[in-house]
C-alpha cells in the first residue's frame, strides 16, 4: 500500500530523529570551559593577578597552591596551619599569604619565599599593591591597617574607624578598600585618609575594588552584592537570599562576580547587574577572583574544589545550550510538519476522515468563538501549571541556565524551619476559620434573620452585613493592624478605658499572641458570604415542612436540629470545602500584617512559597512548595468528590 510519497515522509522523519541522536553527543562533547582543582579540605581564599595568568589558592589543609588557568599545579607551599588568606600583586610578580598561626608570607611568582613575619593577631584582610610596594593587612577586631614593605618591614600603621574584615586594593595601590566590622566599607589612602565610605545593612563579608578604583563591590551578610561607583554611590544590588562570602570585579566592573553561601552559587554579572553566568557547586562558596579582562574567574568552595573558569567559553556553552534548544524546536517542527503531511495523504484516501473534517468545518463557528477562551486558558492557566510541576524538579533560574535536581527541592522542604512552622499555623487558622467565620457565627446570624417576622427587616440586615465589604480587603487588614497598634490602637485603648490596662499588649509583636491576633481579626466573624449561603439555604427549605413541624408543636431546638441542619448539608459541605481549599493556600493576611513574624510565629506555607520566589529567587523551591500544596488539595478534592457521589447514590 505504501506509495513513494509516504516512504519519503518516513525517511525524512527518520533522518530528523537520527540527526538529533547524532547531534546530542556532539553537543555534550563540547570542551569543558572549566578546570577544577581539588584540595584535601575547604578552600579559604583564591587570588589572581590582573593578567589572569595564574591562580593562587589557600586551603584549610595548610597548603598554598599556585595553579595555571588550566588547573595544573605550578608550585605549592605547605604551612603549619590553614592558609586563610592569599593575595597577589596586580602585576603578578608577588604572592602573599597569611596562615592561621598569624604568620604573613611573601613569595615571588615562582615560589621563592622572600620573607615571613608574625602578626599581632589573626588577620582578616590581605592585599598586595603593585610590585608588592605595600603588603597590607587588617584585623577583624583591632582597628588598624598594617602596611609592610616589599622587604618585610613595617612601613606604617594606620588607624581605622573599625576592624577590617576584608581588604582590597587598586592596581597602583593608591587606594585601599576596607570592609569594616561596623557594616561600613571605607576607601582609604595608604596614608590613612578616608576618601569615601559606604554603609551596608548587614555585616560585610567581602570587598573588591576595580584596578583603577572607579568601581567597588561589597558582599554582605544581608544577602546583598552591591556594586558601587567612584565615591561610594550605589549602582545596583543583587539579593541572593543568602550571605555573600566573596566578591570580585574586573576592569571598569565590566564583570562582577560573587561567591555565596547556602544557595551555593557562583554568579557573574555584567556592569548593569544582568546575570551573565552562574555555577551551582552544591556547597557554600568562600571566595572568588577575576582577572582584569574578566576572562578568568577563580572561585573556592567548601566542597574542597577551586573552579577556574574561562568566562567567554563558559558563556558560549551557555549560548550553545540555547542553540540546542532552537535546533530541537526546529526538529520538532519538522516532525510535526511531516506528520501533518502524512495525515493529509491519509485524509485524501479515507472517506471517513473526509467526513470528519467536513463536520468540523461545518461547526467552525463554534470553534472560532471558543478560540479566545482557550488561547487565554492555555497561556495563563495550563502552561503555568505544567511549568510549575516541571520546574519543581529544577533549580529554576529564569533567564539563565536551570539545573535538574530531582527531588532535592522536596527534600529541602523537610528541613525548612519556616515551612515546618507554617503547617500547624495553617491548620489552626483553617480550624478557627471554619468554626467561627465559616459556620458558627454565619449560621447563627442566618437563623436569627430567618426567624424575623418582617421581611423588610430581613432585607435591611442583609444589606447591613454586606456594607463592610465596601472597604477593600487590604484596607481592612491595615485597619486591623492599626487596631492592634500597641500605643494608640483601638484594642489597647479600649482595655485601658475599661480598666484592664494591664492586659494591653503589643498584639502583633508578641510571638505568643500574633497568631491568635490574626485569628481574632475577623471579629465578630459575620462573614457575609457564608451568611447569604446559609440564609438562602434556609429560604429554600419547603415552608410546608417547617409549618407542619410547628403545628405538631416541635420546639425551635428540634426544628433547627431535625429540619434545618439536615437540609443544609449542601451548604455545610460548600463552606467546608471552600474554607479548607482556600485556607490551605491563604497567605495574604500574613504577607501584609506580620510577614510571618515575629520569629516564625505566623508563618504559613503559602508565605514561604511567596518569599522563596520573591525574596530569595528560589523559583524551583517555590514551585516545589506549591506543587506539594497542589497535591494535598488534589487529594482533598478527590475525596470530596467521592464523598459527594456516595452520598448522592444513597
Amino acid at each position, binding site marked *: 500500500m505504501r506509495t513513494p510519497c509516504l516512504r519519503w515522509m518516513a525517511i525524512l522523519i527518520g533522518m530528523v530523529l537520527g540527526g538529533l541522536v547524532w547531534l546530542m553527543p556532539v553537543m555534550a562533547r563540547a570542551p569543558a570551559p572549566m578546570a577544577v582543582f581539588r584540595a584535601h579540605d575547604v578552600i579559604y581564599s583564591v587570588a589572581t593577578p590582573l593578567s589572569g595568568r595564574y591562580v593562587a589558592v589557600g586551603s584549610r589543609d595548610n597548603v598554598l597552591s599556585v595553579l595555571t588557568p588550566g588547573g595544573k599545579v605550578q608550585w605549592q607551599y605547605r604551612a603549619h596551619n590553614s592558609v586563610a588568606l592569599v593575595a597577589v600583586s596586580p602585576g603578578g610578580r608577588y604572592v602573599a599569604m597569611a596562615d592561621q598561626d598569624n604568620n604573613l608570607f611573601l613569595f615571588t611568582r615562582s615560589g621563592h619565599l622572600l620573607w615571613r613575619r608574625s602578626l599581632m593577631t589573626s588577620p582578616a584582610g590581605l592585599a598586595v599593591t603593585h610590585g608588592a610596594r605595600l603588603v597590607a593587612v587588617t584585623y577583624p577586631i583591632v582597628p588598624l591597617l598594617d602596611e609592610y614593605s616589599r622587604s618585610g618591614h613595617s612601613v606604617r600603621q594606620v588607624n581605622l574607624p573599625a576592624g577590617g574584615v576584608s581588604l582590597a586594593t587598586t592596581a597602583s595601590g593608591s587606594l585601599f578598600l576596607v570592609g569594616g566590622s561596623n557594616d561600613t566599607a571605607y576607601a582609604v589612602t595608604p596614608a590613612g585618609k578616608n576618601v569615601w565610605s559606604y554603609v551596608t545593612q548587614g555585616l560585610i563579608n567581602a570587598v573588591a575594588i576595580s584596578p583603577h578604583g572607579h568601581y567597588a563591590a561589597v558582599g554582605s551578610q544581608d544577602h546583598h552584592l552591591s556594586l558601587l561607583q567612584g565615591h561610594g554611590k550605589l549602582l545596583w544590588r543583587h539579593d541572593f537570599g543568602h550571605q555573600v562570602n566573596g566578591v570580585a570585579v574586573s576592569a571598569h566592573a565590566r564583570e562582577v562576580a560573587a561567591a555565596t553561601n547556602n544557595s551555593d552559587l557562583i554568579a557573574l554579572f555584567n556592569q548593569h547587574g544582568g546575570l551573565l553566568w552562574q555555577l551551582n557547586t552544591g556547597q557554600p562558596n568562600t571566595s572568588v577572583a577575576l582577572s582584569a579582562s574578566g576572562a578568568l574567574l577563580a572561585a573556592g568552595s567548601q566542597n574542597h574544589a577551586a573552579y577556574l573558569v574561562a568566562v567567554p567559553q563558559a558563556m558560549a556553552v551557555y549560548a550553545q545550550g540555547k542553540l540546542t534548544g532552537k535546533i530541537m524546536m526546529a526538529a520538532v517542527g519538522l516532525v510535526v510538519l511531516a506528520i501533518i503531511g502524512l495525515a493529509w495523504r491519509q485524509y485524501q484516501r479515507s472517506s471517513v476522515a473526509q467526513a470528519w473534517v467536513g463536520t468540523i468545518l461545518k*461547526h467552525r*463557528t*463554534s470553534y472560532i*468563538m*471558543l478560540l*479566545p*477562551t*482557550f488561547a*487565554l*486558558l492555555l497561556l*495563563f*492557566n495550563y502552561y*503555568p*501549571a505544567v511549568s*510549575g510541576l516541571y520546574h519543581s524538579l529544577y533549580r529554576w533560574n529564569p*533567564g539563565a541556565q536551570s539545573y535538574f535536581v530531582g527531588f532535592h527541592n522536596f527534600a529541602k522542604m523537610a528541613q525548612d524551619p519556616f515551612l515546618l512552622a507554617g503547617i500547624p499555623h495553617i491548620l489552626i487558622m483553617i480550624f478557627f476559620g471554619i468554626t467561627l*467565620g*465559616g459556620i458558627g457565627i454565619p449560621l447563627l446570624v442566618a437563623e436569627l*434573620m430567618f*426567624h424575623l417576622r418582617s421581611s423588610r427587616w430581613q432585607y435591611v440586615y442583609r444589606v447591613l452585613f*454586606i*456594607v*463592610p*465589604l*465596601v*472597604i*477593600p480587603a*487590604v*484596607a481592612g487588614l*491595615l485597619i*486591623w493592624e*492599626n*487596631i492592634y497598634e500597641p*500605643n*494608640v490602637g*483601638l484594642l489597647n485603648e479600649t482595655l485601658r478605658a475599661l480598666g484592664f490596662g494591664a492586659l494591653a499588649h503589643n498584639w502583633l509583636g508578641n510571638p505568643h499572641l500574633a497568631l491568635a491576633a490574626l485569628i481574632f481579626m475577623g471579629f*465578630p466573624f*459575620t*462573614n*457575609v*458570604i457564608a451568611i*447569604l*449561603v446559609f*440564609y438562602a439555604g434556609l429560604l429554600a427549605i419547603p415552608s*410546608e*415542612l417547617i*409549618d*407542619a413541624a410547628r403545628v*405538631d408543636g416541635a420546639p425551635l431546638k428540634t426544628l433547627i436540629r431535625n429540619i434545618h441542619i439536615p437540609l443544609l448539608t449542601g451548604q455545610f459541605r460548600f463552606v467546608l470545602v*471552600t474554607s479548607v481549599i*482556600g485556607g*490551605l*493556600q491563604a497567605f495574604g493576611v500574613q504577607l501584609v500584617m506580620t510577614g510571618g513574624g515575629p520569629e516564625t510565629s505566623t508563618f504559613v506555607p503559602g508565605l514561604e*512559597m511567596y518569599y522563596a520566589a520573591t525574596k530569595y529567587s528560589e*523559583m524551583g523551591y517555590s514551585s516545589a512548595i*506549591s*506543587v506539594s*500544596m497542589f497535591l494535598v*488539595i488534589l487529594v482533598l*478534592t478527590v475525596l470530596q468528590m467521592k464523598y459527594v457521589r456516595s452520598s448522592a447514590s444513597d
Partner: protein
Amino acid sequence: MATQSATVGVKARTMTHRQGRSAGNQLAIHLALAVFVVFSFIPLILTLFMSFRSYGQVLVKFWALPNPWLWQNYVTAWNGVGVNILDSLGYCLASTVFTMALAAISGYVFGRHKFPGRDALFLVILALIMIPGILTLIPMYVLVTNIHLANTPLALILPWSSGGQVLGIFLVRSYIAGVPEEIFESARVDGAKEWDVFRYIGIPMSWPMLMTVGVLQMIGTYNDYIWPSLVINTPNLQPVALALWKYTSSYTISQMGPEFAAYVISAVPLIVLMAFGMRYFIQGATSGAIKL
C-alpha cells in the same frame, strides 16, 4: 437520614402565616442582630473618625471627636493614592468587560451549540477546578516577566480575565442552557446569522447572569494585591489595593490620619458598585459562586 425521612413523613399543611413568634422573641432577635451589626461596623466607624484626625490628636486624647476636622487629610491621601485608584478603575473595568465578553461567548457556545468535541472541551475547562491558584502563581509570574508584560496593564488584565472567565462560563452555560430552544430556532428560521443569534438573543437572555459575573469580577480584581505585588513595581501603575499596602508601610504611625483617609477614598468605587450591583452580588453569593 432517618431524621430526615421522619420529618418528611409529617403531614404537610398550608399555613399563610408563620406562628410562634412572640413580640418578645422578635425583640431579642433584633437585639442580637444589632449587636453583630454594631461590632462589624466598628472598623468602619473607627476609619471614618480617624480619617479626620491627626496622630497628635489621637495621642493626646484617643476617645475624642476630630478637633478640628482635618479635611486636609483627604487631600494628602488623594495625592498619595489617587492615581492608583484611577489605575485600578481602568484595570478592573477592562478586565471585567473582557471577562463578561468571554463568559458570554463561551458560555453561549457550550450551552447552546452542538458540535463534535464539545464535552471534551468543556472538560478541559472543568479540569481547571483541580488547579489551585497557588500552583500557577509563581510560574505565571515568571511567564509574564519573560514575555515582557511586567509593569504593563496587560500583566493584570489578561491573567485576571483568563482566571475570571472560568466561573463565568460555568454560570452562563447552565443559565442559558435553560432557555427554550424555540426562541433561538425562530431566529435561525428567519435567516439570522449565528453571530446575530448570539448578539440579539444570547446576550440579552444571559444578561442577569453576566451582570453577576461582572460584579464578582470587579470586586475580586479591585481587592487583589498579591498578584499585582509580583508584576507591577512602578508606583504610579500599581492598583490601589497594592498601593494602600505600600502607602501605609512607607509611612510611620504619625501619618495615620491620611492613611485612614486613603482607605475611605479607596472604598468609593466599591460603594458605587454595591449601590448598583447589590442584588447581583447577593445572587452570586447565594448561588455559591464566591469562594469564602
